[in-house]
């Protein structure tokens, strides 16, 4: 066949060798090329869209009450990446975000802390400084600093800039990097380019001491159009070395949806069955109420198991969700409905 993709002859396009990522080598085999990657991804079974949406809808009908609800609310807080990703972000706004992350509800000292604060790369030093002793420094204790990188949210820049963006954030202290994939390349079938970029960014996550900042790969499912694409992109991100797969930037509608998150969790479950390795999932954008967030907890527990409900393996990317959880928490504690006057404004 002499079909072409992006004007390149199919032959030269497909024979290109890819960066030797460990997982892809062991899963696909020693001869890791554009072609072998493509064959692997296109060989994945198609998604039963109706079945997926029905399953997600069914999981959303569980009724979680009283003590289970109290547990769920605290768990949600522990899993939140408290996020501010606005053009208008200032060091002051990052400081107030950090203050809220450390002490979400000043009226109740039993409120847990969030998992991480998520900011733009240039705000990482301010976040680190504001966290002070509450900063985890890459350990398990404390609050992580996550930085979005690689020309977030569009991902439209050269690889050199994406790498510089990433290593700058890591050098400034970011414990986690949220990178975006090149959706244009993915949708035009250029899987190898997407793969190589993820591998390169993963390498840029390496710190001076040889450890790595956690890499979350944002698929931006709202732009991938089909569930089949979401499944392929999830596999691609995992094969290239992502520690987490994340649904969305929050800048594109639709952002996180329950069916898409369920699908990504199924990929993670399959990967765990194949290799024993645990990959994290982060739905982000559009989750604003405790009720919605609880549906996600149910979906995680029913798909990959309750051991995934830890900050290492599941996160919510959210800004307004925390306030709603705090209101619900206050309702459970005081027995009376609370109101927006009793939580901080964002």
């Amino acid at each position, binding site marked *: 066949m002499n079909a072409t993709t992006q004007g390149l002859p199919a032959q030269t396009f497909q024979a290109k060798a890819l960066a030797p990522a460990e997982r892809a080598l062991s899963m696909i085999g020693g001869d890791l090329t554009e072609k072998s990657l493509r064959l692997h991804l296109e060989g994945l079974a198609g998604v039963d869209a109706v079945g997926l949406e029905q399953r997600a809808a069914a999981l959303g009908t569980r009724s979680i009450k009283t003590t289970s609800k109290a547990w769920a609310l605290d768990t949600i807080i522990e899993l939140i990446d408290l996020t501010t990703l606005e053009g208008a972000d200032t060091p002051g706004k990052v400081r107030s975000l950090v203050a809220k992350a450390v002490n979400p509800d000043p009226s109740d000292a039993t409120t847990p802390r969030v998992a991480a604060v998520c900011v733009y790369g240039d705000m990482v030093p301010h976040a680190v400084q504001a966290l002070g002793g509450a900063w985890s420094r890459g350990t398990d204790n404390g609050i992580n600093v996550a930085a979005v990188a690689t020309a977030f949210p569009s991902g439209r820049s050269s690889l050199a800039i994406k790498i510089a963006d990433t290593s700058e954030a890591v050098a400034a202290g970011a414990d986690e990097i949220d990178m975006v994939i090149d959706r244009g390349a993915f949708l035009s079938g250029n899987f190898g380019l997407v793969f190589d970029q993820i591998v390169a960014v993963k390498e840029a996550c390496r710190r001076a001491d040889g450890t790595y900042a956690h890499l979350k790969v944002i698929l931006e499912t709202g732009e991938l159009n089909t569930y089949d694409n979401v499944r392929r992109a999830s596999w691609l991100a995992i094969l290239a070395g992502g520690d987490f797969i994340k649904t969305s930037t929050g800048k594109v509608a639709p952002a996180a949806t329950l069916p898409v998150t369920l699908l990504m969790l199924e990929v993670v479950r399959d990967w765990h069955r194949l290799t024993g390795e645990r990959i994290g999932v982060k739905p982000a954008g559009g989750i604003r109420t405790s009720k919605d967030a609880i549906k996600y907890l149910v979906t995680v527990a029913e798909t990959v198991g309750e051991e995934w409900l830890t900050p290492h393996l599941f996160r919510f990317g959210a800004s307004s969700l925390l306030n709603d959880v705090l209101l619900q928490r*206050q309702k459970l504690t005081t*027995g*009376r*409905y*609370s*109101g*927006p*006057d*009793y939580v901080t404004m964002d």
Partner: protein
Amino acid sequence: MTRLAVPKTYKLYIGGKFPRSESGRTYEVSTKDGAFLANASLASRKDARDAVVAARAAFPGWSAATGYNRGQVLYRIAELLEGRRDQFVDELVATESLTKSAATSQVDTAIDAWIWYAGWADKYVQVAGNANAVSGPYFNMSTPEPTGVVAIVAPQSGNALLGLASVIAPAILTGNTVVVVASQAAPLAAISLAEVLATSDVPGGVVNILTGSPAEIAPWLAGHADVNAIDLAGAELLHWVDLQVIAADTLKRVLAPVNGAPAPSLERVVAFTETKTVWHTKSLI
């Protein structure tokens, strides 16, 4: 051939929509002599919560409208009430065992009260506000502003429509949004009023109407931290001192119960306003 009756199920009015109770409960509304009249929704605490959320969402828009604009909206409601007076008369005859002329008189009084309050919308600020004399080169002005979300226990004993008009109109004309617990025994006028409101120019969420037990719902509204004031007009048979105590926890304004439908008064308008005083320098020459 006899025709089967088609009884109407009366639903709640929350955020401009007519949902059933979240709890799925209903109760039977009967005439004074016990004959079945209709099913009405028995609102739960979660319906009250949803209504407060709707009222809070409607508050910024409604309170920012000009007094003139709110007045026009209220006049329009009175016009629509006038067009539906036969329906209200029939419902009052059925639920309150009134004679047709007594029911007509109540509907007329209710519409007249509504018109009377509508006129205040662009005038109460001038009457309740003031330019204060101060010892310095300053203008000092006090103006009333709406309190926020007001929960209302509507009058429960008779005068269903007049009672509603006499508590809703004074609260909303200043820019407050309200959650009303209608008369438990005679909720039909309340939901018919909701149908009038839904087809008028009042934005959804400005008036929210719950039918059901005030004894069940009122404590939740009194304790709700996002409710700024509570009008206990029809709470004379409840433990309303307890409600006042609960309301005090979140510093709500409280109006005590009244006997029957409260008469039109500027006091009811001003009761749910907050006085804002501003200082402004006089220009230096």
